[in-house]
């Protein structure tokens, strides 16, 4: 973990407070028939460090109280401003915590992740392969996990449909 990230605590982030309010308004646990959930998050880095956003903590909060019927989760991650030194960004931004939280979703069978990193270098993109992973939930729950890394343009994907989210 880099020093910059280590100094960031959750209450300092307006975006975290904002996303927490969203998670509380959505409350997946009240949805008694929900089978499929899709969302997008933006991962922003600058000069190698995480910007003032905690998108994966939003997901963590969202799935802390998961709908018991939820079977399938589809995530679209836009990695903005890729630059040097951000290979471990998903790890420090709460991705690992998300992995642990997803283990508590009782009906989960499938997770798919599309990572759009148009501004990352090929080396950075290669490094992402090791971090956008959910080993705990896959091992513990035998969840089907699919990933796709893409460099399609951000503008095209700003209004991605669910059709494009699926593999």
């Amino acid at each position, binding site marked *: 973990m880099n020093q910059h990230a280590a100094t960031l605590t959750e209450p300092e982030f307006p975006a975290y407070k*904002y996303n927490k309010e969203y998670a509380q*308004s959505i409350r997946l646990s009240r*949805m008694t028939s929900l089978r499929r*959930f*899709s*969302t997008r998050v933006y991962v922003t880095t600058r000069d190698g460090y995480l910007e003032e956003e905690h998108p994966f903590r939003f997901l963590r909060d969202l799935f802390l109280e998961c709908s018991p019927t939820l079977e399938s989760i589809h995530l679209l991650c836009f990695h903005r401003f890729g630059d040097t030194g951000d290979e471990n960004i998903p790890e420090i931004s709460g991705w690992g915590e998300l992995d642990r939280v997803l283990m508590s979703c009782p009906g989960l069978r499938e997770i798919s992740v599309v990572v759009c990193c148009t501004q990352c270098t090929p080396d950075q993109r290669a490094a992402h392969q090791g971090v956008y992973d959910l080993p705990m939930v896959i091992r513990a729950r035998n969840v089907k996990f699919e990933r796709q890394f893409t460099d399609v343009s951000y503008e095209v994907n700003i209004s991605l449909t669910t059709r494009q989210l699926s593999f």
Partner: protein
Amino acid sequence: MFLKVLDAISDSPLPGARIGMDDYKEKTLPLEILENIINAVDDKKTLKACALSCSYFQRNCQRRLFWDFEINCDRDDAAFQEGGLIHTVVHTNLDINVVSLIRYLKIENRYGVWGLYGGGKAVDHMLGGFIKKLTALEKLDVRGAGLELRHGELVNGLITVLQLPSLRELKLASLNFFPIQIILWGQSLRRIEFERVIFVPSIVPGGLKKPLISPSLEELKMDNRKNGCSILGLHLLSSALGRAAFTKLKKLHLEYRESEGDRPNDIDRLLSACQSSLEDLNLFLTHDGML
């Protein structure tokens, strides 16, 4: 070859007539083959030619010609002029079967019609009158900032057509000041899609009966523009009637295109209305954190 066949049968009152062919002796093409040929035609120009070939084919071709029908106000001035299709349907009391053939109607007006006497108001008036007469519409697609929803006849037309039992799907795109409460008249709607629509609370004309909601809506797709989710919550979901429209919603796709007017608790009302029926939730937030 096909045009030769058409030329030959166009002189005959009956289908399956004798057809002269250069390389063969006179033969009669069986009716079912002619029908199969016509069924394979997929461009409207040829279908129009087929419809004019004989009265037997007219019905089949007309059904397919008008099945999905587009009114492009930016291009089709003539349709609104005297003698044009829209003008004729609106201003005559003739039993015109076109209105019972249209199943999918797309209306587009991006810039407004300039060449018509009366301008945009006349166009909106005629469009309202036209859609009021449709009897079998299944899908309606209305788009374009050139349409002005302050014109009462257009709003009346929309409310009338929304009450059709056959209407299952409504798509609205690039509309400014759409009176959100209109959708409550969509008694049989299964799917609604809003794309770049700016809502206003209500300009529903007076004297109309209140909508009778039978909750049929299964899918809602909308992008949250200019407080869209907030207006939806305040002016639809705050009443029992409005909430009832969403109680069978199975699929919700909500995309925030901008952070303006984006408040986390606006989504709560919508999800509360459909929390026991919702099966598929697509939620694309901005995550801008602009509080």
